[in-house]
């Protein structure tokens, strides 16, 4: 399966973030963490993970679900696993 471009990943991930946190102004950056978005708590984190899984057709490991609390890690994981 073809790998997707990083720009494309950022674009789609931004859209997921905007939907989940219901905020159209969100601009993703690699350094962004849960601290930067007020409503990004452990509950919303699950919703975010499930929505990311759905959008990119990936499945995170049980151990990864809790760790991905920053955008940079999420992007590199998706760059590695997500396909078109």
């Amino acid at each position: 399966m073809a790998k997707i471009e990083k720009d494309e990943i950022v674009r789609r991930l931004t859209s997921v973030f905007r939907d989940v946190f219901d905020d159209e102004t969100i601009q993703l950056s690699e350094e962004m963490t849960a601290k930067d978005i007020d409503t990004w708590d452990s509950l919303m984190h699950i919703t975010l993970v499930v929505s990311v899984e759905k959008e990119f057709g990936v499945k995170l490991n049980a151990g990864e679900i809790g760790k991905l609390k920053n955008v940079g890690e999420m992007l590199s994981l998706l760059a590695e696993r997500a396909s078109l």
Partner: protein
Amino acid sequence: MGERENKKAVLAEAKKAIAAKDYALAFSALKGAASSGCDFALQARFASLFAAIPAAALNLPRLRLAVLSSGTASHLVPVMKFLLACEGLGAEVFESEYDTVHQVILDPQSALYAFKPEITLILTNYRDVRISLGHGAAAEDVKAAVHAAVRSAAGLWAALKKNSGCHVIQSNADIPAHRVLGNYEGSVPWSRLGALRLYNLELAKAAPAGVSILDMEAISSAFGKTRWHDARFWYHSKHTFSLDATGLVACGAAKIIGAIKGLAKKCVVLDLDNTLWGGVIGDDGVSGIALGDGPDGEAFADFQGYLKRLKERGIILAVCSKNEEEAAREPFLTHPDMQLKLEDISVFKASWGNKADAIRQIAAELNIGLDSMVFVDDNPAERQLVRAELPEVSVLELPADPAGYVDALDGAMYFETVAFSAEDVKRGDYYRDNAVRAGLQQQCANIEDYLKKLEMTAVVGELEPMHLPRIAQLINKSNQFHLTTTRYSESDLTAMTAVPGCRCVYFKLKDRFGDNGLISAVILKAAGAEILEIDTWVMSCRVLARTMEEFICGEIVGIARRGGYKKIRGRYLPTKKNKLVERLYERLNFKLIREDPGGAEWELDLSGPVPDYAGYIAKAVAAA
């Protein structure tokens, strides 16, 4: 556009409407696109937009719901609130701390009881069912272990009953897919599969009135067991089932709650051409329609079979078709593969008029509310018309392929119920007999003549176990002829009438055309030595305008006199649905003694002149 894109478009529309503070539009958009089968990413979007609508803007009747879960229910609760709103209920939810089910139920001082729940949902899973058996355990040990597990659940129900009296919804075991013994696992009672299957059976058997089972085993099977048990989220955050099943679980619970609150649907209004058979009867004739043979024909026959089973369990079927009446009836009379016969249809309307008008007529003839009707039609234009003209009617979105009709109707879960009584089986017949009565009425010169010719006999009896389910059903499901809209479970009724001075009297009505069954109940309570209070008076609308009200009133007067009471007092508490009986006591010559927006109190003084309530109904006393 795909299904997902459609839903996203609706979400965007709802979001805009919320920003513009048009909450009614936002909610109707969300409700129209709600689907219990949506994945969680979508479900969460629906729930969060719904949460942005102020509760006051929708003005739904409030419901106090407690959700007690042995796992994480925090993602389920917002979805449940949304789906309950779709059922017509504004839920206020108490959510227990993670894994504190036993503690909050067993402690009478807990936050749960301070919350005063009307309904408590206990969400446990197979891990909570503690059954430990050795391989090859003896049959009696299996039974004992299963019963001990059931007793543990029943203990919680008893504590809830004692401390709050709320209705309980108990989840059963979502049996895991893993089987250490392979297929053999299902062949022995001592295996995990064998024991949990028995547990689910015994749990349902043990559930008393006032406890309903949320069948997680059925929901997880339909969803797919391997997807359901998503171990990743159990390990990470103690989610006991896949987040993508959230909508199905929330919907299952919301439907049970709707049924408890009397919101389940009662009647399906069916189109004919391309709904019950393939083709157009007026053009194709009986031999030309697709029914029975061929893939489409089989699908239509199976859909009819499903409808027939609905009818047999007490759902009323009506026909609303644009056709010549004679042509429309012909397949019912002559097609060998028709599963539905004319006698299965309580009201048959075939004409070229507007379907919304026809549905209004059907509702009027059956004496049921539009909000208890489901409309099934393959034609999207008809569906749109009915949606626009009759927003109270539920309109089923039928797929283009008849092979999907049963899935669509079954999946909508319109007809959830928490009890079953012998009356349910006969309900369709009662309504059909009414059509025959209407025929007699047309032949009679006046109403007195008609009532005389009906040759009515009423049976009067006191509450006893055999009639308990039906009486509870009448009290809990009736909305229109219900003076106080009191809701009592079977156990409430038994407990109430055990108290001296309180009795529950039921009424059955028969006439020359058939048995109308148990159609009314009253609960009478002593309010001091002199006053007999009518706490509850409920009657099925299918016997309206037959002087049954007068007959019942006469019986109440008799009971009061025999008990030495001097006055009878009755209350009318208005709801959106019981306007029908607003002036009932006035009609029965009671005097108004108090009235405010919350209701009215009426009194009949037995020391003064009391009307003769005799009408056209002869009395028989129930055999003891």
